[in-house]
C-alpha cells in the first residue's frame, strides 16, 4: 500500500464513521446513542489525518521521507482490511439486531439483574408504558406486582415454533456484540410480520405455580391490542 493509498483509506474509514454518526443515525443500530460525540470526533480526526497525507502526496512533498519510510513501513497491507467494515456498512447496511438474534439467544437466561430500587406500584386504572426489561424483571422477580394491571410494551415481532410468537427487544450495554434479548410471548392476537415493530397492550399471565421457572420460558402476555409502529430512534433498551 503506497503512501497516497494509506491516506485515502484512512479518509474513507473516517468518512464512513461520519456517514453513520454525523449525517445519519444509523450508528444507533450498533452502539449506544451517547456514543455519537466520540464517533464524530474519531471520524473527523481520521478524515483530517488522511486528507493531510493525500494533499502532501499530491503536492509531491516529502518524497525523500517516503523512500525512508517505505523501508520502515513495509507491508501494512493488513490495513486493506479496514475497508471491510466500510464495505459491510454500505453493501449489507446491517440493521439493528432483531428476531434472528433474539431467537438465537432464547436458550440464555433472560432474567435481567435485580434493580437497585424496588419497583414502584402500578397505577390501577390506566395502561402503563413499560420497557421490556422492566416487564421481564417484574415477571421474574415480583410477578404479583403485575397482577391486574395493563401494560404497553414496544418491540419487534419474533416467531417461535407451532404458531407461537413473541414481542422482543434487545438490551445493549455498550455495543451490539453484548446485546441480550428480552422476549415476551404474546397470546390472543394474530402475529404481524416478523421483524416489524409493534406496541402491544395487555396483561401479564401469572403462571399457575405463582412463579416462573428460572431461565427456561418467556413470560406471557394476554394481548388485547396490537398496533404497528415505526422503528424507534433507539432500537435497543
Amino acid at each position, binding site marked *: *500500500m*503506497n503512501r*497516497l*493509498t*494509506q491516506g485515502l*483509506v*484512512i479518509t*474513507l*474509514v473516517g468518512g464512513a*464513521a461520519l456517514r453513520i454518526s454525523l449525517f445519519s443515525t444509523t450508528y444507533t*443500530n*450498533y*452502539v449506544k446513542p451517547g*456514543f455519537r460525540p466520540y*464517533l464524530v*470526533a*474519531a471520524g473527523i*480526526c*481520521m478524515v483530517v*489525518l488522511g486528507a493531510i*497525507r493525500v494533499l502532501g502526496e499530491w503536492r*509531491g512533498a516529502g518524497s525523500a*521521507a517516503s523512500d*525512508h*519510510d517505505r523501508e*520502515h513501513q513495509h507491508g*501494512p497491507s*493488513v*490495513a*486493506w*482490511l*479496514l*475497508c*471491510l*467494515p*466500510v*464495505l*459491510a*456498512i*454500505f*453493501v*449489507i*447496511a*446491517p*440493521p439493528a*439486531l432483531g428476531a434472528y438474534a433474539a431467537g*438465537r439467544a432464547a*436458550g*440464555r*437466561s433472560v432474567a435481567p*439483574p*435485580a434493580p437497585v430500587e424496588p419497583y414502584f406500584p402500578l397505577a390501577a386504572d390506566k395502561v402503563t408504558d413499560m420497557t421490556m426489561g422492566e416487564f421481564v424483571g417484574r415477571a421474574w422477580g415480583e410477578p404479583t406486582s403485575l397482577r391486574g394491571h395493563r401494560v404497553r410494551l414496544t418491540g419487534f415481532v419474533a416467531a417461535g415454533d407451532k404458531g407461537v410468537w413473541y414481542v422482543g427487544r434487545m438490551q445493549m*450495554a*455498550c*455495543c*451490539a*456484540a*453484548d446485546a*441480550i434479548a428480552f422476549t415476551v410471548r404474546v397470546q390472543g392476537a394474530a402475529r404481524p410480520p416478523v421483524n416489524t415493530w409493534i406496541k402491544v397492550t395487555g396483561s401479564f399471565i401469572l403462571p399457575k405455580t405463582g412463579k416462573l421457572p428460572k*431461565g427456561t420460558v418467556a413470560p406471557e402476555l394476554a394481548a388485547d391490542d396490537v398496533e404497528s409502529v415505526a422503528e424507534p430512534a433507539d432500537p435497543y433498551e
Partner: protein
Amino acid sequence: MSDRALVSRADEHDDLIPPPTWRPPKSRLPWPFVALIGLLLAGRFWLAPYVQWPALQTWATIFVAICVQALPFLVFGVALSAVITAFVPAAFWTRALPRHPAMAVPIAGVAGAVLPGCECASVPVAGGLMARGVTPAAALAFLLASPAINPVVLVATAVAFPGRPVMVVARFTASLAVAVLAGWTWARFGRSEWLRIPSRPANTSGWAAFGEVMLHDLLHAGGFLVVGGLTAATLNVVIPQSWITGLAGVPWLSVLTLALLAVILSICSEADAFVAASLTPFPMTAKLAFLVVGPMVDLKLIALQVGTFGRRFATRFVPLTFVLGVLVSTVVGQALL
C-alpha cells in the same frame, strides 16, 4: 560470442534508458483504491437489495458494532502513543520509572489506573512506551492493568453489580495482581528476541512525526482490529448460547467457561460488567474470571498484539496471561466473594 552479444544488446538498452534527470510523469493513480471505490458503488446499488439473509445481517451487525465501538478508543490510544513518541522526550521515562524492572513493573501497573479507555487504546500506548525505551515488562504491566482498573471501568462495574461493591474490589485486586505477576514473569523469563518493539521514523519529534506515527499505527492496529472483529462476530453467531449456559453448574468448569467466553465475545472492558451480571446461572467467582480475563485476553486484543509485537510474542504472552487470569481470579474469588 553469445556473451558479447548479450552485453552489446544490454548496451543498446542502456542507451534507451532515460537520463537520471528525467522523471516519470506523476500518474501514480492509486488503482487498488479506485477499484475499491468501484466495488463499493457497485455493491451499494446492485448487490444491496439481494443480501438480506438474517444470519448474514446479524453477523454484519455484530462485526460492524465491534469495529464502530472500538474505533474512537483506537484513535485515542494511537494519538496518545503518537504524543509519547513525538513530544515526550525519552529521558522523561528513565526518570519517571525506577531502573530496576522488578520495581518498575508494579508502578507501571498502578499507573494503568489513569488511562480511561478500553483495551484497544492500551496496546498502541504500550507499543509507544516500549519504542521510547521503557522496559518491556513495565509497559506490559501497564498494557494489562489499564483497561481493567481505570475509574471508568470500575464505576461501570459498581453500576452493574448494585449492592455488591466487593465485586469492584475483587476486580481491581485480581486485575492488578495478574498484570504485575505477568510483568515480573516477563522480566524474569522473557527474551528480547521474542518481542518486536514497534519501530519509529527517524525524525521523532514535532507535528510531522506525530502525523506519520499516528497514521501508520492507525492503519496497522486498525487492520488487526478488523481481524479480531471478524473472528469474534463469527464465533458469536456460530456458537449456540445454550452450550455455554449448560456448563454453568460445574464449579471449576464454570470459571474456565466464562474465562473462555470472555476471550470469544471480545467485549469492551467498559461494558463487560453488564454482560457478566446478566450471566445469572454462573457463580460469582466465574463472573470475576470473566471480568479479569476479558480486558487482558480476547480475540481482538490477540490480533492487535500479534500485529503490534509479533507472533512469537503473542504465542507466549497470551497463554501466560490467560492462565494467570484464571488462577488469580479463582484465588481472589474464594477469598473475597
